[in-house]
């Protein structure tokens, strides 16, 4: 067993530098690596290119990095929950590359799987296809899309072990899965770090080989963006 443990977020992100490209797992605020984001805010690493499906909200998630203008370029599929984002983008302070969500996920997965490029129909006939190679398959045009090339992937899991094996919870798996192993170095923060042998080898979502550093995070806020509920059944009815 190859031990991937580091002490904490500070040690995990110690060599993330100005100008680097970093992938962040999560969908909306669900399953985001809160500890590593906080540490990057704390260290004020700037000029980052961030690959993340969303850009957080004004005061949480990647919104914290945006607020301190640490992000030079954002690669996302949907950024509609963030007023500061919109302001920086429309003013030209922030470079933005919008990519269809499935293409974004597949570009991460391609990097994870050592596939340099693949064809997808998504975005044909739209701005997204501009300047890209087009090829027909079964009479339908497809776009050639390239794997992402990131310095770091930062993912968040529910459980992990010393060997770097990861298990995600419910819909927090999302982009954490295809990003694990997609960057040159993958950092995983987990809610619960257990000894090797504690996770069923048949039920590991991401094998440890994809992860270079792992630590147990602290103080997860796990903020909910849209709290929607139904009324409890009224037993008097």
């Amino acid at each position, binding site marked *: 067993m190859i031990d991937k443990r580091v002490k904490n977020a500070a040690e995990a992100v110690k060599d993330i530098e100005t100008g680097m490209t970093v992938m962040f797992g999560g*969908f*909306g*605020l*669900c*399953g985001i690596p809160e500890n590593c984001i906080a540490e990057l805010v704390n260290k004020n690493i700037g000029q980052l290119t961030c690959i993340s*499906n969303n850009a957080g909200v004004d005061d949480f998630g990647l919104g914290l990095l945006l607020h301190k203008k640490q992000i030079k370029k954002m690669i*996302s*599929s*949907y*950024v*509609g*929950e963030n007023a500061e984002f*919109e302001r920086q*983008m*429309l003013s030209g302070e922030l470079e*933005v590359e*919008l990519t*269809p*969500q*499935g*293409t*974004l*996920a*597949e570009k*991460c*997965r391609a990097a994870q799987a050592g596939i340099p490029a693949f064809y*997808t*129909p*998504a*975005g*044909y*006939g*739209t*701005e*997204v296809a501009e300047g890209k190679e087009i090829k027909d398959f079964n009479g339908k045009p497809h776009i050639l899309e390239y794997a992402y090339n990131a310095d770091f992937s930062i993912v968040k899991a*529910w459980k992990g072990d010393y060997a770097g094996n990861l298990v*995600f*919870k*419910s*819909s*927090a*798996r*999302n*982009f*954490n*899965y*295809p990003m694990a192993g997609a960057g040159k170095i993958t950092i995983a923060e987990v809610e619960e770090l257990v000894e090797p042998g504690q996770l069923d080898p048949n039920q590991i*979502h991401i094998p440890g080989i994809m992860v270079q550093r792992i630590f147990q995070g602290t103080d997860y806020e*796990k*903020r*909910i*963006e*849209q*709290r*929607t*509920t*139904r*009324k*409890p059944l009224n037993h008097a009815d």
Partner: protein
Amino acid sequence: MLTKEQIAKRISREVKDRMYVNLGIGIPTLVANYVPDDISVEFQSENGVLGMGPFPYEGEEDADLINAGKQTITILPGGSFFDSAFSFGMIRSQKVDLTILGAMEVSENGDIANWKIPGKMVKGMGGAMDLVASAENIIVAMMHVNKAGESKILKQCTLPLTGVNCVKKIVTELAVMEVTPAGLRLIERAPGVTVDDIIKATEAHLLIDGDVPEMQL
């Protein structure tokens, strides 16, 4: 004129037994409320959920269990979780039978625009471009005209496109229209709405064959 709920109710009649269905944000989300109990349908959420259930009871919300609209949800027996790459794999490989989504504009040949107003609003396309590029059956739920009273059903879209030649049906507060190889066919009108009302509210050319029946809700 239909309410948003009635638009959703009309669309629910397009949902058939044994379909996997992806619902977009807004009116499409409401469709789930009107699917009859006697058919088996599974809802897919592109952030990695199959077999989506109703919202949780108060106090039972789980930050790790949301839908693509970032709303807290539940999962039904027989449901499953998966990652975003796998999720769009099932979308691209056409395992999702029906996609219902909103739009800012639709053209008479089935082009759709719903992600960007240049210089004004750029929220991003999210999963919409993947969905419309791959889905066999795409129904758009939208308002027929914008706040200024201008038609959103056009000869050609003016906004940046989300997908080309992909929409199969449009359901608005006024009408149900079908995109056919011959053009956009008016197939139903809302209760109390005349064919003339619909023609006036529509910039696109509408094909009209004989009497256009009133919608059954």
